[in-house]
């Protein structure tokens, strides 16, 4: 087709059958799609003993998922700080914001954004997942299916702790400084337990991994409760981590916890980031 400006464009006509050369283009497209899909696949790597017992499904009565640095820091300080937890697996994935998949078989380095699984030594039915890496929207479903696919659904109960910036909290009232950080909860309909804080009000919504997990639990009728902490601090902060303390009440029935001694550990997480920021004095 000749255009007004004198250039010649090749235009495809649907009335005419396509030539063989175009099939190569299509194959190329397919190849590219496949390569992208493979690259973006979510891999869950379990340690050998867990991988063996996965011939059936993993016995799990309580799954605690922490999404975000403050939630993960809270679990590290109050729960994982005792010596009775074993690292049993990790999820590795690649997306534009989390480029970790070059080391699929090797566990992530400490301090790197990652998705790690821990199991309690004395009570192996309790699993903890700390997710500090970004999981893209197209990977959320895969992550949820693969993780829950390894767990036995009967008797499973899920708790999710998630961070969110308070700027995304929609309310008609003005939020005074002293109210922040605060918790809001959301439950699946199968959950009969009492939530320890007010429910998340409309029109606020959850997004990302917490939403994917809660949706999965709702669809499969797994009792699940989520605690969303709204905070005005971007980096890990000890006050924000302490806001998750009410969740300890549920956990303490299952495993031994450190109730108060970890304030220094909390501060260690916070201090690392505070010293690096010279923006505010």
């Amino acid at each position: 087709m000749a255009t007004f400006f004198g250039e010649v464009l090749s235009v495809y006509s649907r009335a005419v059958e396509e030539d063989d050369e175009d099939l190569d283009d299509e194959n190329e497209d397919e190849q590219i799609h496949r390569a992208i899909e493979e690259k973006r696949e979510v891999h869950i790597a379990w340690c050998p003993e867990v991988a063996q017992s996965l011939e059936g499904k993993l016995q799990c009565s309580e799954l605690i998922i922490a999404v975000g640095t403050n939630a993960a820091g809270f679990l590290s300080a109050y729960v994982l700080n005792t010596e009775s937890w074993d690292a049993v697996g990790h999820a590795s994935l690649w997306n534009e914001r989390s480029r970790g998949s070059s080391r699929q078989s090797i566990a992530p380095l400490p301090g790197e954004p990652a998705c790690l699984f821990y199991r309690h030594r004395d009570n192996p039915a309790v699993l903890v997942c700390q997710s500090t890496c970004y999981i893209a929207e197209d990977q959320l479903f895969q992550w949820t299916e693969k993780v829950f696919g390894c767990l036995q659904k009967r008797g499973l109960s899920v708790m999710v702790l998630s961070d969110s910036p308070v700027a995304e909290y929609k309310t008609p009232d003005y939020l005074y400084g002293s109210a922040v950080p605060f918790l809001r909860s959301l439950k699946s309909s199968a959950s009969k337990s009492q939530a320890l804080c007010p429910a998340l009000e409309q029109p606020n919504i959850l997004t990302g991994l917490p939403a994917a997990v809660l949706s999965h639990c709702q669809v499969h009728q797994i009792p699940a409760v989520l605690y969303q902490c709204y905070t005005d601090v971007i980096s890990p902060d000890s006050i924000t981590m302490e806001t998750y303390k009410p969740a300890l009440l549920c956990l303490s029935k299952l495993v031994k916890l450190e109730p108060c001694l970890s304030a220094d550990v909390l501060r260690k997480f916070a201090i690392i980031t505070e010293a690096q920021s010279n923006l505010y004095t």
Partner: protein
Amino acid sequence: MAMSYDRAITVFSPDGHLFQVDYAQEAVKKGSTAVGVRGKNVVVLGVEKKIVAKLQEDRTVRKICSLDDNVFMAFAGLTADARIIVNRARVECQSHRLTVEDPATVEYITRYISSIKQRYTQSNGRRPFGISSLIVGFDFDGTPHLYQTDPSGTYHAWKANAIGRSAKTVREFLEKNYKEDMESDTDTIKLAIRALLEVVQSGGKNIELAIMKRDESMKMLAQEEIEEYVTAIETEKQKKT
């Protein structure tokens, strides 16, 4: 709700808010706490020391700056904005001395700083300054003053006040414990330290204090002196309980 009216500083929302100014107040809350107390014969500014990186020279991380021989201030919020304001105020203090042959009063320099801040809330293409400041000093007639400014460009005189993170908690403490016309310098200093200890983690070693007595220049208290006051405060507390 607020979304379409909060991007430009020069636009009011239908209910009369300048959202950029409100948001600038949030930036102030990101800074560490500063407290100011005005006594009869001494003015005190205390700040929570910022945690400094290992390789950083900590004497370059200062929250308390002197503006002239008779005025000094502490700020909370964006460090770079504070530097600009402090520099302009220092120049204005000298300009005042040269023009009028007298040191600027505390109120004069506070008004100058506030006018700069207000100007930045009314021109487009600029954002408000993200700092609040506590300005203390003595006028040449010997009257002590404490003023507080905020990003909107307002200023008010206070007997005692706090800015920055946890300012509300500290202010409530000051309201309960401030006594009019504190004669004793020690009591004024102790009040500032006690107020800071309410919110500062790990006690005296994270506090920096500056005082100015009438007809004297500003003095930054040494760490040992602060520790002495902290010990005295703790002893008094134990005696009460």
